[in-house]
């Protein structure tokens, strides 16, 4: 058990390091700006209409505090951390006076849901097909799938999402191309609402899944090809173990281990993809919130979404890391 405890300890330390470095990067970026961010934000907000002078003055004061521009550099740095740890990013400028935390809390379930479901589907499907393709190397259908995967995998999420949007929005309009659910439905667990959520999720999820399946497929296929040459596989074949059992318990079981590590490592990239996919399809998650916040010049919201993203992705990676020993029992020993 001490082996497992040590493993968990190391993973937790790594998690804290990611959060620490991530937040510091956010701090350096926000404080290295050559332009005064406060005046920038105020001119962005006031350019849309008339605002009372005392309201501007109040805004300027709260912004100065929000940016942490008062006091010595050490005080500024500590104030920044305090703000992040208490998850207090002040009121949103673009949706005044709703707090940034509320806006993020509203968007987070959409992103988490879309990301979890599409990543799981892509990972399972890609590994299953990739495993089969590595094992049955002569199958024509699986070879063709390999070619398709090679063509899909390098395309960035934005381009694929745009192609799906054009295909299902202009050429063959059968699916909803914008939003998270039909506008006027009450957001409760009625069958209509669930159905509408599912329908709206198809296209964003599809663009995440298509690219994801391609990359897991290619990875798994080459991993399986390597495992096949191992002695224990040859031995099992000679011992007359049925080929389906060899594939699942001997080959794929071992090839899955690096694929789990791969999932943890690529979570950040998948999150990037979700951000941009959400924007393309107007999905009401963190991605749309982030991009709209930039257009509206809402500093607190941009900073809030960025830090929550770093935190969220690190938590996801930690969760995968902690599940890892279930698949690879060697971790408990070493």
């Amino acid at each position, binding site marked *: 058990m001490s082996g497992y405890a040590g493993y968990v300890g190391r993973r937790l330390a790594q998690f804290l390091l990611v959060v620490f*470095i991530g937040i510091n990067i956010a701090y350096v970026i926000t404080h290295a700006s050559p332009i005064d961010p406060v005046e920038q934000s105020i001119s962005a907000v006031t350019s849309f209409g008339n605002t009372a002078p005392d309201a501007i003055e109040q805004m300027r004061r709260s912004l100065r505090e929000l940016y942490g521009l008062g006091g010595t550099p050490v005080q500024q740095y500590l104030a920044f951390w305090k703000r992040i740890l208490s998850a207090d990013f002040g009121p949103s400028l673009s949706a005044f006076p709703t707090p940034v935390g509320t806006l993020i809390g509203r968007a987070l379930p959409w992103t988490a849901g879309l990301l979890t479901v599409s990543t799981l589907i892509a990972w399972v499907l890609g590994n299953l097909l990739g495993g089969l393709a590595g094992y049955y190397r002569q199958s024509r259908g699986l070879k063709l799938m390999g070619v398709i995967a*090679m063509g899909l995998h*390098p395309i*960035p999420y934005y381009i694929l999402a745009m192609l799906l949007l054009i295909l299902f929005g202009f050429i063959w309009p059968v699916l909803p191309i914008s939003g998270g659910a039909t506008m006027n439905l009450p957001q409760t667990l009625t069958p209509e609402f669930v159905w509408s959520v599912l329908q709206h999720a198809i296209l964003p999820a599809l663009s995440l899944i298509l690219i994801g399946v391609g990359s897991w497929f290619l990875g798994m296929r080459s991993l399986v*090809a*390597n495992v096949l040459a191992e002695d224990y596989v040859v031995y099992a074949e000679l011992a007359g173990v049925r080929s389906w059992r060899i594939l699942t318990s001997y080959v794929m079981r071992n090839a899955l281990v690096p694929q789990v590590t791969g999932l943890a490592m690529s979570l950040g*990239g998948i999150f*990037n993809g979700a951000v941009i996919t959400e924007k393309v399809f107007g999905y009401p998650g963190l991605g749309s919130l982030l991009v709209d916040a930039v257009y509206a010049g809402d500093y607190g919201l941009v900073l809030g979404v960025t830090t929550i993203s770093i935190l969220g992705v*690190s938590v996801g990676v930690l969760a995968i890391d902690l599940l890892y020993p279930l698949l690879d029992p060697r971790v408990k020993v070493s």
Partner: protein
Amino acid sequence: MVVFLRDLLRYRAEFRIGLVLVAVVLLLSVLASFSPYPPDSVYVVPPDLPPSLTYWFGTTSRGQDVFWQLSFAIRNTLLFGGTVALVSRLVALAVGLVSGYKGGWIDRALMSVNDTFIVIPLLPVLVLFYFVMRDRISWLMLALIMACFGWAYDARLIRSVVMSLRQREFTQTSLFSGMSTRQVLTDEHLPYVVPILFSTTMNNMVWSIGLEVTLAVLGFTDINIPTIGGMIYWANQHTAMVAGIWWWIAFPTIAVIMAFIGLFLLAVSVNAHIDPRSRLWNVGEAS
């Protein structure tokens, strides 16, 4: 190196296809030097014309010739990807070589930082960067900050190669004959790392160009310099899809997809060729 390339050409269909795709894209980018119009001028040709013999890829609503605009765009986009790849290669090489060769606590410390950079979601960080820089953002600045993040994954790959090289006999031999660490790394190990360096360069370009297109489409870069993402941004600003000016979006998209698939195929085929087992398979299937 010549034999390596010749074998690649002979046995790897992916390599041949990738080479053709990249060559077409490169040719298009070289043509930018012969453009009759300067890259940033607008309303030099009649707007909104469909593809014809005079204007091969049509013209935009801003009165630009899509063909020449595209050649500037793809040149700048490739230049961007190349810069990111070059700078991040230097970091990846240094970290990978030192970490893999030294091992011990140096390795553990470097890999902790390394994994951190792999995990952090870059897009929100880049958006935050654009948000504080606004109009001051330049393509070089963006390239450098992406290079700061783009080395980590490949450093891990290079490290694993060097770790296995360290166990080989020639490493011991060169150490006993009095070579310094730096000499062992640069003279003995680097040649083995070069092929993998090539394939990671291609993959890194795919990655950075993808991010740049994404940022530019949202308008989060210097939109006055023509890039592929910038072209799509302006097309979206003029609602080109709704107005039926499909050629404004279609041709940049096709060009950039060709670049992506071409670079990726080059990387994949070189990777597969380094692995002796898959090389044997392939030769077996070809004969």
